[in-house]
């Protein structure tokens, strides 16, 4: 499939010429707005930095919800709240729609077999809501975890485990706090290496 895409791209690039007039941005300014997110979250929301989550392909409801919560200050954030206070609710909705429409690209990661095995043993704390392999959340406000960066997942769990951090989701906090310290990393790696749903 990848080869087919490559060939198609190559062919189409060869065809590219002076007859092409409609650039990608002609579809509207959402692309220009979304481009401001790429600096940290990658082109089309595919992050290449382990502490920064990929956002392309997350559900629209989830993305809109967390962005609005950051903007309104009901959800702790280290950085995002300060940024989102500069965006209108309409812009936030448009960004959520844009990134939800992008393909979900699992990050290439590895972990020792033993770590993944241990992670699987405690993954039932996650799978009830996020799906068997983290890729099929039970509702639209729940993010997918499969192929998300392990370091980011670990940092999120650390936030939920810390009572000083203000977060709205009680069930999530309860489950995160029930994990043993070592299990936080293990279960993060288990979800991170899942390629499928």
């Amino acid at each position: 499939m990848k080869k087919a895409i490559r060939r198609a791209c190559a062919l189409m690039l060869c065809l590219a010429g002076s007859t092409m007039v409609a650039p990608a941005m002609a579809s509207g300014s959402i692309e220009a707005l979304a481009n401001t997110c790429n600096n940290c979250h990658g082109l089309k929301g595919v992050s290449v930095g382990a502490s920064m989550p990929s956002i392309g392909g997350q559900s629209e409801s989830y993305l809109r919800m967390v962005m609005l919560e950051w903007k309104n200050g009901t959800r702790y954030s280290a950085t995002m709240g300060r940024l989102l206070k500069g965006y209108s609710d309409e812009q936030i909705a448009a960004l959520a729609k844009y990134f939800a429409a992008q393909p979900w690209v699992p990050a290439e990661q590895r972990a020792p077999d033993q770590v993944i095995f241990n992670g699987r043993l405690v993954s039932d704390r996650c799978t009830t809501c996020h799906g068997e392999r983290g890729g099929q959340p039970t509702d639209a406000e729940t993010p997918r975890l499969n192929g998300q960066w392990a370091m980011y997942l670990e940092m999120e769990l650390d936030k939920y485990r810390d009572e000083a951090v203000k977060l709205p989701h009680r069930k999530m906090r309860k489950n995160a706090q029930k994990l043993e310290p070592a299990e936080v990393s293990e279960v993060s790696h288990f979800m991170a290496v899942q390629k499928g749903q």
Partner: protein
Amino acid sequence: MNSVNRRVFLQSLAAAGSASILTVPAARATTTAKARVVVVGGGFGGAAAAKYIKVMDPAIDVTLVEPNATYTACPLSNEVISGHRTLESLQTRYGGLTARGINIVQRWVTAVDPVKKVVTLTGGATLSYDALIMAPGVDFTWGAVEGYTQAVSEEIPHAYKAGPQTLLLKDQVMAMKDGEVCIIAPPPKPFRCPPGPYERAAQIAHYLKHHGKGKSKILILDPNDSFSKQALFTQAWKALYPGMIEWVPGKDDGKVVKIDPKTRTCYTTFGEHKGRVVNIIPAHKAGKIARDAGLANAQGWCEVKPMSMESTVHADIYPVGDCCIAGELPVYDMPKSAHMAVTQAKVAAGAIIAKLNGLPNPEPFYVNTCYSLAAPDYGFSVVHVYKVEDNKFIYVKTAGGVSPVQAPPITRRLEAEYANGWFNNIMADAFV
């Protein structure tokens, strides 16, 4: 190609590129190109502008002119001085841009003719352009501190352009004995990476503290009376390196006016300070080619139109990155950061493509995020959001700002990790 197919194609191209599976060399548009864009300088601003023009409209011929084959990024380079990063971890070449079909020319631009719209390269070759991105970064004003010349900087480093200078400063810091003094002299505002000198103080202190040299001191002799993220740095210095870092503002005779390189003595108006290591960061101005092209104002910076990043002096030239001055002056000017440069580049790219295609100028969006590391697990940030109203930059005061001084302790560790993640993404955003 109809517009639907074209959109699908562009999406597949972008998706392929982002997943790093696009290995085919893209077609080099030459004779069939509908327009030519020349980019002067391959730092964050120049590289990102070249990339986004090509991503948004592959039919445009894009040529990036950059004398160096390897780029060394400045963000996080203070961690090289403390030994937490290698210089190599900050470096990239231009293969990512070549793979996207951008022509890379390894030369200097020696002249710009804004009327004929032609640039001249070292060796005499010329390139004509329909639009020009001007991203040469900054030059230093040698002699602004008496006795501090380019030749002297080979022994007393500025280390404010990442590369050999960074390693020289690192070596000198490592050679310090316990109890010796390191002097840092920041430049007058505006300068690139506003928190840079103060992050550097923390990184040097971190090295000294953890290598049995905790009695050493870092003395910051500052011509300015305030600095970026000041409350956060002051808090971090006190918490992490108590008694090691002293900051002397301009109003308390902090401004270094002269240096004796032989004795490593810094002279302020009324005093003198001797350092085992001296780090002078000279005053900045826009890179020479931007000034030679007539783009700079009396203070040495390129002014731009907020809607497009087009120069206020010459049409079809777009200064981006550290060379330009923008924002609500004098307090809310846009910081000279990698993030800001990439953001500006995207605005310029959008404006250029719209103009070349006869489309309306897209609404510009300007944001900045800048992380500083006081220790490997201790970071904080500043965020800026700008809007354009009535052709003016407006700093959105309800947003942005620095990390809270009173925050859950986990915040500093999280932001330190975000700094590293940000770096990987911004490098990819500009160079891949």
